[in-house]
């Protein structure tokens, strides 16, 4: 399998390893009761604070509470991820703050990559964590929590994009805004590999400039490591469509990346 066919991050991303093991991790399918019932709720499921709790268990305002004794939801010296999760599931807001601290970068970065816009990425990071707060009790631990949250975030972004207009026409059309042209002609332009001209900023700009559908497929397959069958399910399109749109996305990216390289060569 060449690099063009292998999904990104499969080996380095434990979340993806869970996906490969067959656990879909789709939040909507997780309806079992929460794990780890705890009597130490500091915040009810409806978000209202429980005054009977001690001060240190009330709403945690600090987001720098990772694994510290101070921020431990159970007041213990050591708190494992599982304990934090269990406490958050039972409504402990300090534990939820810890979950936010632990996962905010991943969720925000995913939103940013999929949307290519800081303001929208922040809005949807917020929406993802609000939805997490609503649904956390339904997480039953069939997959890793990070996998589950990752999928929840993707669903939030996809819903947002559909609301923005991708649902007005078929997704296939939305993903394929330009008709096929003839074979590519690249003589005269520098070979990107040889010039070594791609830095992170250039690449991010090029990915941001992709049409939403192309960007989605590229990010999901090449960065996040989703397989074509998973993308087809997520985006409600055919596997063949996912493959061809990924190819078009890469071609479009190549086009965008070649432009600065050609300019550089002309100087």
């Amino acid at each position, binding site marked *: 399998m*060449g690099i*063009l066919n292998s999904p990104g991050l499969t080996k*380095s991303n434990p979340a993806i390893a869970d996906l490969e093991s067959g656990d879909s991790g789709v939040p909507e399918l997780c309806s079992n009761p929460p794990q780890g019932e705890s009597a130490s709720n500091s915040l009810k499921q409806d978000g209202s604070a429980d005054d009977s709790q001690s001060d240190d268990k009330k709403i945690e305002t600090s987001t720098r509470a990772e694994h510290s004794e101070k921020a431990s939801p159970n007041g213990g010296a050591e708190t494992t991820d599982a304990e934090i999760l269990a406490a958050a599931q039972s409504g402990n807001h300090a534990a939820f703050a810890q979950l936010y601290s632990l996962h905010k970068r991943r969720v925000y970065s995913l939103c940013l990559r999929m949307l290519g816009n800081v303001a929208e990425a922040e809005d949807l990071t917020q929406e993802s964590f*609000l939805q997490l707060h609503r649904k956390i009790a339904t997480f039953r631990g069939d997959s890793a929590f990070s996998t589950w949250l990752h999928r929840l975030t993707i669903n939030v972004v996809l819903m947002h994009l559909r609301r923005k207009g991708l649902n007005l026409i078929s997704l296939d059309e939305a993903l394929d805004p330009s008709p096929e042209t*003839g074979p590519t002609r690249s003589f005269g332009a520098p*070979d990107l590999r040889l010039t070594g001209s791609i830095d992170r900023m250039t*690449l991010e700009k090029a990915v941001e400039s992709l049409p939403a559908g192309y960007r989605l497929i590229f990010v999901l397959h*090449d960065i996040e490591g989703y397989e074509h069958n998973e993308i087809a399910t997520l985006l409600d399109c055919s596997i063949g469509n996912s493959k061809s749109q990924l*190819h078009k996305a890469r071609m479009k990216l190549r086009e965008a990346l070649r432009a600065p390289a050609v300019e550089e060569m002309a100087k």
Partner: protein
Amino acid sequence: MTEPQELKLDRKHAARDFADSDCAEFQANMPERIGAGEDLQTDPHMLTCERCRSLVRELEYIVEVARQLMPAEEEPRDELWANIQLAIERGDA
């Protein structure tokens, strides 16, 4: 007797069109073949066509670089947690 200029041009165009049709066919099948995990490096067309070889090489390079550079995680603004907390307190969650 020398060949008329138009005929020379026609032959040149015909040769280019023939090469184009090979490239077009190769490139049209690329998404499905790549998606199926096929190794395009061994395709006979790749051995003879610098244009398509260069295309595949560049696509591979883009994916490789994207995988190295893009997963870097970024920090959201500190205010975001305050907004989330406020929304939870309001009962939006």
